[in-house]
């Protein structure tokens, strides 16, 4: 069952005297109850702007969420809620963690003070009870010696522990959705594996639905139930993880997969995608991947709609109707 649904979301940024930027331009996706959906894309594809827009966290102005879009959570359209109505959703319904826990934590407050603050914002607990709850939250996300950690400052914690503290704060309001924006990018690979374990565990244990935003298709392969691939402000393909990696339907997904260096498959030459991603101020006309696509033909001058490419699998590409063009 769909818990969080994004339909035709468009976000624009107006810069003084400069061109209008449209980092998210007609993006749609559904997050199901209790699933881990990976939103994958390269820098500048709009994935972080999309995540921030879900809780209306982009600064308006200069940003603007186009009112024609819809973000439905728990029966309410988040784009039409008043600030007072939105407040309990932030952290209570949907919580957010970021890439760099070092810059999201307050360096002059102890971990305890910061977790307690969030606990008290979401409950009526007194200070002592909130501290006990904070300790429990830290322990539940694998912070050993939680009582001791409560009195430490962020700089005294390693990167992995800081990210665990951020996750504990995100869980303080008992959210049903966790948006994790590149939560492991700043971490070492062995620590990354630990945090991925933790997210999988939270999904199982708390039935949390997770929107996992990453630039790394390899990570998505390991943890996601479903994967949505974003390019130039739109979701260009989505499918269950097993299917997306076995039979990618969009040429961008296929090309990105082929360009990933792999530990399990050495090759002196990697396959590449020519050119570079377009800027958000000037998305290409027609299919946005057309200038870089090896299969592009006349039809691609028109923008393809998101269409069925298989069971629970959609992609924005005309090749779905003319598979023979893909060649043998």
């Amino acid at each position, binding site marked *: 069952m769909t818990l969080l649904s994004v339909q035709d979301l468009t976000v624009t940024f107006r810069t003084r005297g400069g061109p209008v930027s449209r980092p998210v331009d007609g993006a749609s996706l559904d997050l199901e109850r209790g699933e881990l959906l990976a939103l994958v894309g390269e820098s500048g594809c709009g994935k972080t702007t999309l995540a921030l827009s879900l809780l209306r966290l982009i600064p308006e102005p200069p940003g603007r969420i186009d009112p024609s879009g819809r973000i439905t959570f728990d029966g309410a359209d988040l784009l039409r809620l008043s600030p007072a109505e939105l407040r309990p959703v932030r952290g209570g319904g949907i919580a957010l963690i970021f890439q760099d826990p070092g810059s999201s934590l307050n360096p002059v407050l102890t971990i305890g003070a910061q977790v307690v603050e969030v606990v008290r914002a979401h409950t009526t607990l007194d200070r002592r009870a909130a501290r006990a709850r904070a300790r429990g939250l830290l322990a539940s996300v694998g912070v050993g010696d939680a009582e001791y950690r409560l009195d430490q400052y962020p700089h005294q914690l390693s990167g992995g522990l800081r990210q665990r503290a951020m996750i504990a704060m995100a869980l303080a309001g008992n959210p049903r959705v966790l948006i994790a924006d590149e939560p492991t990018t700043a971490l*070492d690979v062995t620590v990354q*594996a630990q945090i991925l374990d933790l997210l999988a565990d939270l999904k199982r244990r708390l039935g949390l639905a997770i929107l996992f935003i990453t630039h*790394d*298709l390899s990570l998505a*392969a*390991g943890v996601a139930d479903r994967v949505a691939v974003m390019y130039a402000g739109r979701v260009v393909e989505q499918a269950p993880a097993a299917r997306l990696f076995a039979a990618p339907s969009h040429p961008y997904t296929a090309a990105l997969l082929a360009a*990933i260096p792999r530990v*399990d498959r050495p090759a002196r030459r*990697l396959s590449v995608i020519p050119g*570079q991603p377009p800027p958000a101020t000037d998305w290409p006309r027609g299919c946005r991947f057309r200038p870089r696509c090896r299969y592009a033909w006349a039809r691609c001058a028109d923008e393809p709609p998101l269409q069925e490419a298989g069971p629970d699998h959609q992609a924005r590409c005309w090749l779905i109707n003319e598979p023979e063009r893909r060649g043998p």
Partner: protein
Amino acid sequence: MSTERLLEIEQLVKGFPLPAAPFRAPLRLLAVDHVSLFVHRGETLALVGESGSGKTTLGRCALRLIEPDAGTVHFAGLNLLALRGEALRRLRRRAQMVFQDATLSLNPRMRVGRAVGEPIEMHQVARGAAARERAVALLQEVGLDPAQAECYPHQLSGGQRQRVGIARALSVDPEFLVLDEPVSSLDVSIGAQVLNLLADLQERRGLTYLLIAHDLAVVRHLATRVAVMYLGRLVESAPADPLYRKPLHPYTASLLAAAPVPDPAAGPPRAVIAGEPSSMARPVRGCPFYPRCPHPAKDTRCKEETPDLREVETGRWAACHYANDPFLAAPTP
């Protein structure tokens, strides 16, 4: 590839002073702790490790961009640490560095054509119009348009800036390049282009690379041999293929198990070791990896006695008492 050792580092030590606590003796952080390694002419030695392993410090010592505290560095038979003045300058022409973030390593107020031409004039390879011509030819060699010589760094994309960084390193016709995380700040589709460029340049110019990287997948595409560092120590070195097939050190095995693979059937990255590398937590005695080691055989010997790097099989070195019976991460259930 020859068996000539173009670069040979022996027992290299480099420490940095830590902020001193009042009434305590000042401490030094041993970023590189008695590391020995060599690079054959024409090959790529990859230096792999997590943050704080000392790989970047070692790379800088290898070019004497920073002065090591002890040990020796020989380049093409010359004792690099004994060279002074003009002799050192001449050697610097032969060994250059490509930095991780070209945005930070290029002068924002210098057109990229001049950035590439500057070392050409400085090392008196060519002057004036000849130097400019050479700079443009280099930009073309790394896949840029000659017209882009007139651009400032901010007018280029990240991938293009990294190409400029490579052209600048190549401008004095070196034999040897230290590549410090050359693609880690780039997107996948752009990183693949740069990795292919580095492979092409190596073949065309017969270059020798010391590739510093944290990403085992990136390393796999370029490396002839791999050296793994942990908290300042070299823990394993081996030719690339056998190392990826059967790592001998439990830390290498843990790194490989944690490396994500773009195939859902391969399962998620596996956290076979807990905790994080911390130079503060590094034991004074015994194996530096002891606190995190997943090897079932680890015992008091590991706790007491620092294992030396030893040749376990021909060409394969590991610093583990149990390297003959290596730890293998269990396959995904």
